[in-house]
């Protein structure tokens, strides 16, 4: 019981700001004022927790059992960028079509409930550090836009984004666009996608 309480507490305590994570030795106690002292103690506690306690036996315990938890929703600051995705699908005959990845803003209320996972997936999948997800992303889109007599040969992923302006500044009215991945579709993989999923692999 005590171990469980300690473990979930250790894991939930926020990590220190990035500058201390990158350079732990830069932390020092600031006694210039009460406020500065409290802040440095705050970061120091979190740094100690991050380096010495999170790496303890609580890590394998929580990560394996499913008790892991970290509460950083809209924290430390909420996102200020609205983004969505579509793809340009090029077919063997040179024609092109646009695939609209589910965009929550355009969906009805029931569809929003059903398809929110698409937003969450793209929230991570569009990041450069997860570029290993892009080929599969493109392949699935090719399958969804498939035409066996005129198969898709290339899928270009596009992200569209708009940054929310602070209060008092005019809000943007349009989205920026950028093609961040050009995926040539492997036809043998596309053939596999066409096979019946529920008849065994």
């Amino acid at each position: 019981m005590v171990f469980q309480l300690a473990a979930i507490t250790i894991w939930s305590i926020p990590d220190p700001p990035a500058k201390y994570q990158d350079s732990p030795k830069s932390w020092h106690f600031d006694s210039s004022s009460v406020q500065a002292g409290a802040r440095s103690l705050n970061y120091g506690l979190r740094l100690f927790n991050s380096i010495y306690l999170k790496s303890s036996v609580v890590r394998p315990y929580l990560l394996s059992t499913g008790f892991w938890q970290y509460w950083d929703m809209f924290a430390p600051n909420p996102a200020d960028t609205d983004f969505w995705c579509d793809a340009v699908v090029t077919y063997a005959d040179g024609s092109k079509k646009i695939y609209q990845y589910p965009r929550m803003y355009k969906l009805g209320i029931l569809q929003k409930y059903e398809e929110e996972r698409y937003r969450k997936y793209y929230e991570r999948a569009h990041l450069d550090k997860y570029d290993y997800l892009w080929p599969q992303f493109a392949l699935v889109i090719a399958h969804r836009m498939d035409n066996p007599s005129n198969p898709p040969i290339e899928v270009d992923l596009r992200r569209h984004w708009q940054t929310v302006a602070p209060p008092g500044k005019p809000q943007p009215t349009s989205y920026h666009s950028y093609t961040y991945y050009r995926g040539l579709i492997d036809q043998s993989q596309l053939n596999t996608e066409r096979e019946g999923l529920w008849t065994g692999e």
Partner: protein
Amino acid sequence: MSKKPQSDSKPKYGFWRETDRYWFGWHSATAIGIFRILGSLCLLADLFLLSFDFQTWFTERGFVPVGLNETFSGTIPTSFTVGPWVVNMPFSIPRISLLAHVTDARIALLFYLIIVGAGICTLFGWKTRISSIILALGIVSLQHRNMIILHGGDTVMRLTALYIAIAPSGAALSLDRLLAVWRGEETKEPKLVSVWPQRLIQYNLALIYFTTWWLKMDGDLWRNGSAVWFTSRLHEFFRFPYPMFIKSYPASVVLTYATVIIELSMGTLVFYKPARKYVLIGGLLLHATIEYTMNIPMFSFAICSMYVCFYEGEEVSAWAERIKNRIAKLRPIQKRSILAPAGHQFDPAKVAAIEASHPFASVTYDCGDGKSLAVETEDGHPAEWKSWAAGPIGWIPGLWQKLSQAALVEREAAGRGQKNQKRMKEESRN
């Protein structure tokens, strides 16, 4: 059982004894039973929502095949510290996932259907211990199978499933409990259980709010009151329309500071009993606002389902009694008498089980002198086997009559049954 909830009694013992009583004392299981029902409903709703795109998220033909998920989630490091020592293991402890390395979509789908079945059993409290463990294993496995699509609400639901499995969730408001009373294995008085799982849930819930508040205090947008300005303009989170003045800067400031105040209160002040009700109402308002304005399915419902754990079972029962009394004042309760035929009477244990399902205690079970089972109004007139005040068994055609029929015994056998009931009551008192 004492009429006063145990937690209201003044401390009579030292600090450690009181601490022990607080964490491991015995209380009615009613609160945990309600948590089981609400939590299971949230989990089943989430499983239902996942069914629409099951192929997309949990098969090799979707966006996240097994291999990509393993790359994303990584392996748990093989080394960890124990005090000053570093322990290096020759292998990495795997995450619990019964779907690990499963690439056959049919197996994944079968697994999903088993979890849904376990969820239904847990909801109704049938074979609760085993069904809740299967549900917890299933939810953890499903989430570990695809970690890319997880949001905060998934974490809450995973913890809900785990805590339902750990707690004595079937000890109240469950078929297991009803059947145990029917068989004479338990009496109808609320079962007392050790409260430590409930304390764990309380603590974890408070930890959620406190740590998210703590991290938000690093953010200048929360400190300067403009955070909600930005979240209200993220189109991909829009749900229901709301008046434009809510998106104005002054309203954004009010909502931003209200959010941080409620979160801090939910992490601290909620344990102070005089403030508890108001803090929880604040939490409900916060999540109602989030649920209305932002598309984060199931998050608000899941986290609010844990709120009941801040009340002892006795407090929940007392609140239910007050609600029943208010309803009784607004709408007259139809009292009924169920009369056994001549030569028969009702088995006390079985009647106790049936009475447990009557929310208004408006039905009496007595001996009669008719040829068959009969139901009468309080004036002695024949009545139908239908009464809203009798609870769910009074609404389902034929069920009440069938159960009452099954509870009949001949008068000689009833004498033996009563002796058994009396002996059980004496044993439970001792």
